[in-house]
């Protein structure tokens, strides 16, 4: 009885094993190019960067020398460059994200009014988001020119002199905030615009029947319904802004002094200008840890939001 039943089953399982083996081989063949690139140029560098952060190296010595926590202790001295960069990064992120979110919501809501020509405004608002950051940086360098840039014309309208945006430490950080916000604003606006058009209209009609209008409708209906998008844009906005490099490199070079040095610029400067590999690796690790917290908050929140729509 058992012997009779086993024979065909075994034959089938042999064929099945061959099938599984063949599929498995094919799977690996298809996956390996991408997986290898991700491991070699993504995961491995992240881990080895952590190792390097406990060493001292300048590219010239034959090998990195272990120094324990020294790099971190130096970095977290009060008044250190890292502290300055953390402060600048926090200001840069706070103002670019807050500014583009508020401005983007307002513009998105305006575009959703379906006025004539709003298609044209949509296009032109999104265009800067397509441009290389280097082009945006160099363009704004000219616009900020206190003698021959548009900045002079703008401030002259109010009878004032243009600040020396990129060459004085009081203004350099604000210069990169403005240029970066200009590049990102249209992107946020278009996302909000699409999200507003996507809102379920029947709820609004019901609320309108109950007499809710204008600001109240916006406060109690539109804003809460948009909150998943607001959350998404905030988190991705923080992550993107915290990594901004090209606009800083073309506009201020992190200066004058260290007045517009943010974390990515500091990492670059320590590694490829000062050749202080261990310190740069430690700074990169600090930045990674901070961004990881932001990302984890998003993943936790997003998994709770799965059934939202």
């Amino acid at each position: 009885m058992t012997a009779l039943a086993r024979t065909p089953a075994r034959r089938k399982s042999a064929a099945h094993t061959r099938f599984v083996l063949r599929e498995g081989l094919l799977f690996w063949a298809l996956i390996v190019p991408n997986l290898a690139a991700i491991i070699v140029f993504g995961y491995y560098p992240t881990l080895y960067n952590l190792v390097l952060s406990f060493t001292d190296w300048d590219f010239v010595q034959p090998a990195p020398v272990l120094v324990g926590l020294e790099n971190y202790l130096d970095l977290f001295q009060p008044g250190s460059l890292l502290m300055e960069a953390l402060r600048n990064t926090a200001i840069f992120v706070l103002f670019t994200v807050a500014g583009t979110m508020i401005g983007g919501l307002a513009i998105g809501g305006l575009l959703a009014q379906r006025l004539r020509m709003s298609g044209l405004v949509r296009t032109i608002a999104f265009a800067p988001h397509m441009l290389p950051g280097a082009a945006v940086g160099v363009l704004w360098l000219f616009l900020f020119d206190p003698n021959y840039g548009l900045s002079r014309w703008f401030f002259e309208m109010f009878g004032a002199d243009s600040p020396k945006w990129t060459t004085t430490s009081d203004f350099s950080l604000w210069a990169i905030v403005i240029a970066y916000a200009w590049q990102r604003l249209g992107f946020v606006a278009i996302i909000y615009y699409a999200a507003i058009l996507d809102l379920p209209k029947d709820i609004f009609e019901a609320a309108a029947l109950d007499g809710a209008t204008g600001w109240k409708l916006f406060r109690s209906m539109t804003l809460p319904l948009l909150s998943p998008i607001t959350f998404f844009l905030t988190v991705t906005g923080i992550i993107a802004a915290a990594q901004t490099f090209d606009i800083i490199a073309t506009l201020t070079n992190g200066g004058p002094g260290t007045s517009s040095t943010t974390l990515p610029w500091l990492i670059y400067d320590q590694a490829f200008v000062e050749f202080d590999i261990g310190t740069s690796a430690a700074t990169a690790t600090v930045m990674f840890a901070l961004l990881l917290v932001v990302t984890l908050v998003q993943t936790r929140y997003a998994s709770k939001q799965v059934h939202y729509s």
Partner: protein
Amino acid sequence: MTLTSPRPVTADIPAADDSTATEPRQESLGLRPARDRRPAARRSRPMTIALYILMGFVFAVFAIPIYWLFSSSLKPEGEIYTFPLTWIPSSLEWSNFADAWTSAPFGAFLRNSIITTVVGTALEIGVALLSAYAFAFVRFRGKMVIFAIMVGSLMLPGHITLLVNYITVAGLGWLNTYQGLILPGIGSAFAMFLLFQQMRQVPGELVDAAKIDGAGHIRRMWNVVAPICQPMILTATLIVMIGKWNDFVWPLIVTSTADMRTLPIGLMFLRSQEGYDSWGPVMAGTVIVAAPMLILFFLAQRRIIGGIVSGALKG
């Protein structure tokens, strides 16, 4: 309160059974159609005028800098260094472009940008297609663990891999070469994820039918799955391409001679070379860097915005 409501909103709600009123209309953005359209809200005339003024202001914020970029690249030098500003160039001065082209090797920059963008995009989309197909259609136990590892790489910020990738590429002897510029960027979690999501929507019967006809995986991928996913492949290609063209920090550190630099890096060096006293050529150089992306955007606006927006709205 209800009685004094300034806008009798109830008046313009169409009858619920009026099917034509709720017919989904294709959005001009090329997004998925809006579920239903509220009839244009009734607005007072001052309100409408105020909204148009606001929109004009928004337009100016984006249009004026872009206009300034293009007009300055064509202005004679005398009209750049004047105040009050010259808004409309009296004559079009193409020599700014010639100046930019000769004072920096823009021909080489352009060539390098095109090579890294085209080859890099082809490779990235290629490996993304293969791996997305494997995750969607090839049977393998535990493949979702590998999927998670790949998607997890999206959490690694570019700046943490910079230093070690530089050391790796230097160790391979690839500094200042095309393979050094291109290969570290071909691993793709984002494009793979986009394509995977699209492939999951492919009807299983179609793939099974091809299988019964004796088509192996490769033929099924090439003849059945890829054609169905073509729109998403195109969208992913555009988004990846824009990223590669605009890439800055990696080409900056991995190249060391002018003949290997890409356009954004070349622009930065043109800026420091020409300095503050030569805005005409510098703006012309900026136009050379920016124009390809603007042209691409105007040609494929719906697809690019649609791809980016749907990625965001679906989280």
